[in-house]
């Protein structure tokens, strides 16, 4: 119902197969389709960033002290940053990191959430209570301050070998791990709800009667039928994760320079806001566009896959 087209306006006859029906419904959601296209473009830009750099003959790491904080020009379409590096190239590289973190965490969190949701829904009783209470707790806690504590923990004290912690990409992986730890409850709730309704269906009872083990039933019979909510919540999660990453990086606790991310590119921008205001605009604008696009695609998917529940949905907001 949040759609750009009211659901009641089904003038054309819908195709028969559920997947094809969903696809048709998705295509009617203009905003979602536009967002999906935008996201594809962003992902392509990030993937082909090195190629683009070669074509435009720019180097994101080339420091030029004689060209600091320049405005836009043919050589530097978006100008240069405070070290004379091409801002466009930095944005492309930052996009690689931000998108990679967003997608990885969403995947990890969705996996974790699915496992927990399946277990809770299938097992029921005390286990269900416990897991869902835990999920509620995680959602309602003041997450950001807790994440800051987690990020600040010394990995060496946890017994991780120095070879691991001294790697440049360690900070990225740590961030992925930590955000995944708190990102699962949304998915878990949806999967649990789906599991509860599927659990009572005939084919599950049949499978039970045939003596299949619970793990087999969960994975082979329930999981495929809960695919829609998983897909929707994972899509919505990507946007949230990118927001989280940007906040932590902005506060200096996420991705560390010289590895650029859209979040940490804004850290320095605040101090330069008088001199080079556009440095504060571009990275934020990209975060905004990507996050809203993921949210809209998630909305579109939800309506396409499960039109009935779409009304009450709202992406979780941390």
């Amino acid at each position, binding site marked *: *119902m*949040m*759609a*750009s*087209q*009211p659901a009641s*306006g089904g003038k054309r006859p819908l195709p028969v197969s559920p997947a094809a029906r969903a696809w048709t419904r998705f295509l009617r959601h203009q*905003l979602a389709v536009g967002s999906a296209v935008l996201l594809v473009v962003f992902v392509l830009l990030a993937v082909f960033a090195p190629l683009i750099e070669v074509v435009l003959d720019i180097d994101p790491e080339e420091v030029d002290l004689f060209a600091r904080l320049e405005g836009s020009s043919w050589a530097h379409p978006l100008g240069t940053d405070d070290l004379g590096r091409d801002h466009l190239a930095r944005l492309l590289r930052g996009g690689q990191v931000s998108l990679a973190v967003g997608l990885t965490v969403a995947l990890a969190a969705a996996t974790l959430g699915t496992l927990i949701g399946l277990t809770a829904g299938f097992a029921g009783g005390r286990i269900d*209570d416990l897991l869902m*209470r835990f999920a*509620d*707790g995680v*959602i*309602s*806690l*003041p*997450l*950001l*301050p*807790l994440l*800051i*504590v*987690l990020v*600040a*923990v*010394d990995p*060496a*004290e*946890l017994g991780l070998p120095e070879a691991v912690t001294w790697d440049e990409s360690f900070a990225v992986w740590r961030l992925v791990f930590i955000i995944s730890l708190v990102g699962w409850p949304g998915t878990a709730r949806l999967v649990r709800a789906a599991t509860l309704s599927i659990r009572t269906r005939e084919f599950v009872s049949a499978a039970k009667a045939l003596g299949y083990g619970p793990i087999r039933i969960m994975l082979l019979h329930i999981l495929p039928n809960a695919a829609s909510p998983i897909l929707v919540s994972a899509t919505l999660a990507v*946007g949230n994760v990118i*927001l989280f990453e*940007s*906040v932590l990086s*902005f*506060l200096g606790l996420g991705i560390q320079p010289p590895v650029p991310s859209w*979040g940490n590119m*804004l850290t320095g*921008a*605040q101090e330069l*806001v*008088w001199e080079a*205001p556009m440095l*504060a*605009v571009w*990275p*934020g604008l990209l*975060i*905004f566009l990507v*996050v*809203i696009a993921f*949210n*809209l695609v998630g*909305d579109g998917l939800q309506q396409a896959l499960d039109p009935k529940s779409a*009304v*009450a*949905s*709202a*992406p979780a*907001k*941390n």
Partner: protein
Amino acid sequence: MIRYIILRLAQAAAVLIGMSFLIYVLIGLMPGDPIDLMLSADPDVTPEDVARLKAIYGLDRPIIERYVAWLAAAVDGDFGYSRLFNAPVLEVLLPRLGNSLILMSLSLGLALSIALPAGIIAARNPGSLADRFINLACFAGISVPPFWFALLMILLFSVSLGWLPAGGMGNLDGGGFFDRVHHMILPVATLSIASIAAYARHMRAAMIEVRREDWVRTARAKGLSDQVVERRHALRNALLPVVTILALDFGGLFSGALITETMFSQLGMGKTIYDAILGNDYNLALVGLLLATLITLLANIAADIVYARLDPRITFVAEDGAG
């Protein structure tokens, strides 16, 4: 009901004690220490000084031992000293909690006063132009990085237009009340942006849901005007889920306050916790986080109770909480 509340409060206490241990250990795992930092800041401080000071502050004892000592004192009402401020932690935290609550309630008020009408208007005619516009605006509000929004506000209102201060709590004794408000406009706007969007979406969904219910249709069939039905019946029932979400969202509000207060140099809880964590001020970070958690838990319990009060269909079973 009473039994239920007591049970929930006991649960909350257990959660708090568990959290306190977890956070204490986690903070203990953060390397470095403010006393070590003094070494680099002051050439006259020697490593011997550092060892002596650590012993004075009890930092040379194992972490479990320190935690037990802390907990024992906390039960007696002594939550320890903040090292960043050299004062009892509650003395530091309470005024800042006050500032945060002012900031949070102002932005909550602002959020509701925009979100509720917007949600209602959108729900009146789903799919209409107004609905679609509000919907898109909501998505924008949920998706905008709050610190970036704050940066844009500073850019527009402080740098370009010069209307509003870029930070701080107010001039000293200069402007009094109005000055304080002047300094709070940008922080309140920043903190409420995401809430406006979230609440409006919930309000819209709830209104649509309620409008479909039989008794609303009946009321309308009886000849009551659309507006009367909306105001007298539908609104009250639609507010129910929104109130719940509002209370459940309290933890998120603390997270938002952390960003807002840091960006605009507001002396609130969020910023204090952030500074305490970065400055390795054990007690301050710990008690700050616990205080934030406590308030969040209480808000959640309150939401459940309010929900039960307003909605006769719900009864409590002491075992598993709210249905």
